């Protein structure tokens, strides 16, 4: 298995192109000319072959009161790959995180020719689990006193291996399109905060209503995501935190599998494990409300233990919620009303933390 060049595949931290202006030396005409060229003509040239905008589709559900967003997903294969490779947005609906369903299904149906060298994370996990199971079976045999030659592994065949020997099933016919290749049936599902970030902050995505096909503008999207315009609406509070960390260069992903709100990666999941687990706590100016909503020591201890057990640091992110959010004319003004402050909570054990 050829080791992938991660730096080549995941070379940009966000799906935007950045032009670095050269240093300007005023008395040197060549430097001035080059600077003006980079400043004016390069974006102008790009304007012709403008970067393709990505598309996503929004599903809504309505009750008697109003419409609510139920999901925002990207369907096209190129858009999915671009969003994942530049910034690790979203989660594949048929995969663990990286949208690899087409790749894995092609491999399973023994179709892909040149792509067998790319190993999906799910396959890495499956191999690790199969190896662990083999080891446990062998250990159980040894413990029972069965005198078996440990260098004879053929007896212990796992279920996965038995299953893998079958090729295509009848249901797999429906997966192929007219040319015989696997259809793109997977979507990349974006969280609401990611979708709003891509639409508002980066402005590279067009979101369409799944029923009507109309383009959803940013203010309308905000209205759908925050149907009650209360200052402590969970979408806007979480979005403020998401925007804050993204703008500082962190890769921010959902942290539900560790019981936290967000995970912060330095570069992204393929490079290293997350360093921080962020929990968002709204802070009101009314102190009695803060007392009402406060968490107890048991909660803090539990989360700290889970997060510490996976070698991350727990960050409590306090978001100061304004009293009312009626007076704003742009999303930027709305975001400016919120303040973010972090506190790191780490457990120090004198017997263990000596180094």
């Amino acid at each position, binding site marked *: 298995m050829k080791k992938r060049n991660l730096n080549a595949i995941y070379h940009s931290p966000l799906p935007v192109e950045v032009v670095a202006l050269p240093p300007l030396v005023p008395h040197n005409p060549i430097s001035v000319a080059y600077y003006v060229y980079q400043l004016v003509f390069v974006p102008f040239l790009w304007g012709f072959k403008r970067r393709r905008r990505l598309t996503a589709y929004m599903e809504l559900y309505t009750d008697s009161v109003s419409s609510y967003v139920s999901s925002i997903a990207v369907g096209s294969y190129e858009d999915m790959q671009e969003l994942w490779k530049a910034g690790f947005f979203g989660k594949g609906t048929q995969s663990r995180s990286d949208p690899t369903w087409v790749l894995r299904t092609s491999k399973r149906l023994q179709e892909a020719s040149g792509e067998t060298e790319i190993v999906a994370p799910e396959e890495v996990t499956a191999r690790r*689990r199969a190896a*662990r199971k083999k080891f446990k079976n062998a250990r159980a045999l040894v413990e029972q006193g069965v005198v078996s030659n440990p260098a004879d592994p053929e007896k212990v065949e796992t279920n996965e291996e038995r299953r893998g020997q079958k090729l295509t099933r009848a249901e797999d016919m429906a997966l192929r399109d007219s040319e015989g290749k696997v259809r793109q049936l997977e979507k990349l599902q974006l969280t609401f905060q990611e979708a709003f970030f891509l639409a508002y902050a980066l402005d590279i995505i067009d979101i369409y209503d799944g029923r009507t096909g109309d383009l959803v503008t940013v203010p309308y999207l905000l209205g759908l995501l925050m149907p009650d315009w209360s200052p402590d609406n969970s979408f806007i509070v979480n979005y403020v935190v998401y925007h804050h960390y993204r703008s500082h260069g962190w890769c921010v992903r959902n942290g*539900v*599998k*560790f*019981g*936290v*709100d967000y995970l912060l990666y330095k570069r992204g999941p393929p490079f290293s494990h997350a360093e921080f687990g962020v929990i968002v706590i709204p802070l009101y100016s009314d102190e009695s409300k803060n007392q009402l909503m406060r968490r107890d*020591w*048991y*909660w*803090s*201890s*539990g*989360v*700290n*233990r*889970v997060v510490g*057990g996976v070698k991350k640091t727990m960050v409590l992110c306090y978001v100061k919620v304004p009293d009312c959010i009626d007076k704003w004319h742009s999303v930027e003004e709305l975001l400016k009303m919120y303040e973010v402050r972090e506190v790191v909570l780490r457990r120090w054990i004198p017997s263990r933390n000596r180094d």
Partner: protein
Amino acid sequence: MQMVENDAADLIPISFIDGEYFAFDIEAVKRLRNDHHVAGILVGTLPQVPQQSTFLGLPVQLMPEEAALLVQKGVARIIDEGSRHEAMLAVDENDIDEATAKLKINEVESAGSESQGQLVSFTTPALSTVNRVALPESSVGAVYDTPRFDVYKYLHERGYFILPGLRFGSQFLAYPGDPLRYHSHYLVRGLGYGEEFSLLELVGSGRLGTGVKKAWMVGGHVPEDEQHKLATLNSSKTIEREGSEPIEDFVSFCVEWAGFG
């Protein structure tokens, strides 16, 4: 609530000091552990090895739920050490013998007349002139009818040893037998009926429990008008134990992660 009528001197003394419950007497600790499967936590310094905190000695600290359940069952009595200490100081030296005798009589009297959940207190001849009631701010009565107490009582009736669960971020840890012999099976969280808890807590506690080979248990008391729904859930029979009511109005669930590793 039936209460076993014990001789007052037979009741296990639990000292109430500054909001916390302790058992100082070694015989009391033995009775608690062997007869009533209440383990408690040792919090005292061992005189032989004072400069460490791994091995601790008497007294044993009890949780408010443990003290409350023992009082409810009529096997223990709470002694308010603060008032008792002041009462002993106020006794005139010449009257010590007389006062001590009166103290003992008062103890027996007031222990016999206690009602459920009331703190047992006593007055001395010297204190009776002072207008003061020897009740601390948070007596045992405040513990009853809380979700924590309901789940504690539910598990205690089924023979579990229950210790505080702060280490694992839960309210209690439930051991199937003596903690010195077994690992705990459950991280326990008591909830009120209809009380909401977040999905993040469910995921995090389930993950924590599965990582340490335990299950996360949530349970709560079901009010009477909703108990008809329990018939489909609680298929197992309740356990009858002498001297206490079986709880038939409690429902509990366990959460574990699947597909780990």
